[in-house]
């Protein structure tokens, strides 16, 4: 891994977030179908509206790492709507407060996820096992930190890939959970067998960021 790929400056972070936005936009239909199964079917539309707005907002954003993350948070909060807007907005807003203006490295990424998780849980009172995006985000944050420690200072790329894998595994586990919060709790036992749409979005977001790491700048 070349040293310049061990951290993203604000411009590289913007490109990675655009890449993650593209992945979510390409999966809008998947999100809509997942939400039709256990929610009211508007998650895909909301996320698409939000990440289109993120792509529009990023170019003009002040080029510092906290400002980029804060812009994403503010934009999602205002444009996604419903619960998803509040939650994904809070993830980025809270996460932006935990990072410094230094380039976004593995430590910054772990802090972003940890602070984002704390903010999301405080906002929505979701605990692991409630069948929400926390079931993808919590293992991702833990895995990013563990990877960083195991290898005595892993690269940003290693942490991104490990977090994305952990989020995906966590998202799959939500199939076996009964929703207890939000609109999906309407279904109770009937939510079994379906993954949580927010956990899918969380996974796509991390896969998109990890994917950006593999590309030449």
């Amino acid at each position, binding site marked *: 891994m070349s040293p310049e790929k061990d951290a993203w400056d604000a411009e590289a972070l913007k490109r990675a977030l655009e890449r993650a936005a593209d992945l979510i936009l390409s999966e809008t239909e998947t999100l809509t179908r997942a939400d039709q199964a256990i929610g009211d079917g508007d998650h895909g539309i909301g996320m698409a509206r939000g990440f289109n707005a993120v792509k529009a907002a990023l170019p003009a954003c002040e080029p510092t790492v906290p400002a980029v993350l804060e812009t994403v948070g503010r934009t999602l*909060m*205002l444009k996604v*709507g419903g*619960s998803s807007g*509040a939650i994904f907005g809070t993830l980025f807003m809270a996460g932006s407060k935990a990072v410094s203006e230094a380039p976004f490295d593995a430590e910054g990424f772990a802090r972003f996820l940890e602070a984002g998780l704390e903010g999301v849980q405080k906002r929505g009172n979701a605990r692991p096992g409630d069948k929400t995006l926390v079931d993808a985000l919590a293992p991702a944050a833990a895995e990013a930190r563990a990877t960083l420690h195991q290898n005595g200072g892993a690269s940003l790329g290693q942490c991104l890939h490990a977090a994305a894998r952990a989020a995906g595994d966590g998202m799959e586990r939500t199939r076996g959970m009964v929703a207890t919060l939000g609109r999906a*709790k*309407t279904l109770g036992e009937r939510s079994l067998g379906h993954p949580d749409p927010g956990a899918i979005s969380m996974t796509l977001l991390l896969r998109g960021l990890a994917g950006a790491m593999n590309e030449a700048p």
Partner: protein
Amino acid sequence: MNKARKILNDPLRVADELLEGLVLAGDGKVVKLPGVNALVRPDLPEGKVALLVGGGSGHEPLFHGFVGKNMADGAACGDIFAAPSPDVPYEATKAIHRGNGVLYLYGNYAGDAMNFDIAAEMAAADGIRVETIRICDDVASAPPERASERRGIAGDLYMIKIAGGAAATYPTLDEVVRVTRKAVDNIRSLGVALAAGSIPQTGEPTFLLPDDEIEIGMGVHGEPGVGRQKMTSADALTAQMLERLLADLPFKQGDSVCLLVNSLGSTTMMECLIVNRAARALLAERGITVHATDIGPYVTCQEMAGFSITLMRLDDELRRLYDLPADSVGYRKMGKAGA
């Protein structure tokens, strides 16, 4: 099930267009803020405690229809069945704040709570004091020991009536909060669903219920109630619902109440009146006095069939606030003679 037929233009502009129509129906009593789907009263005096309500659209006249004199001072409106993003209540807060604080009053739903909380934090950063009370009157949605987890349903009307009256006549936010909490403690509702409404954008039903079954306690978005059963007579159904409702607070002999029979949308005034007849007989049997009655579609879910019964137990203070005249597009009331 056939898709619902609705009189619409652009399915994606339903919330915007209904608000435009509502502002016009208000004949100057409400205005829409530029850039966000928030309605506010334009004539608020300096120093008035402000009351902000809101939530997803599609339940009209609920929330935005209840902005007016002695009712709400503003409403933050989401898209159909979706919570408003936080900029909507935040902009509404700034528009109605008159230096004496703002009370947020809305139904206890996750999306609304998160977005209004964010707005409250943004307002606090501007130095505006905000207090929050979530409406949780639906006895079917959680047991009494977890009453604060209950959903808000038709009790919204009485909550806004009491809080609106208090915000118009009490000098401080603390006093308005105190009496509004008292209203929470004294209002209980229970509904029954006979058939689903539909999502305006898609025409799809909001839930599925077999043709010959009804569900007591089902929420307006199809949240599960206390069990499905076969259809029965108006008298038997009303008795079954009131039994559960009266036992919850509990309401006792000698209590004085306001009674609301609310249509969820397509249930007719005729049916609500027949339910009212049964309810009054049962309440009289229990020695419970009805101070005032409200009947009609106030908290709806499109063409959902079914109704809910709400009781508000009164003391002198709640009675006085209820008896204040009110003037909003969705709820008008003359003052009681001598009040």
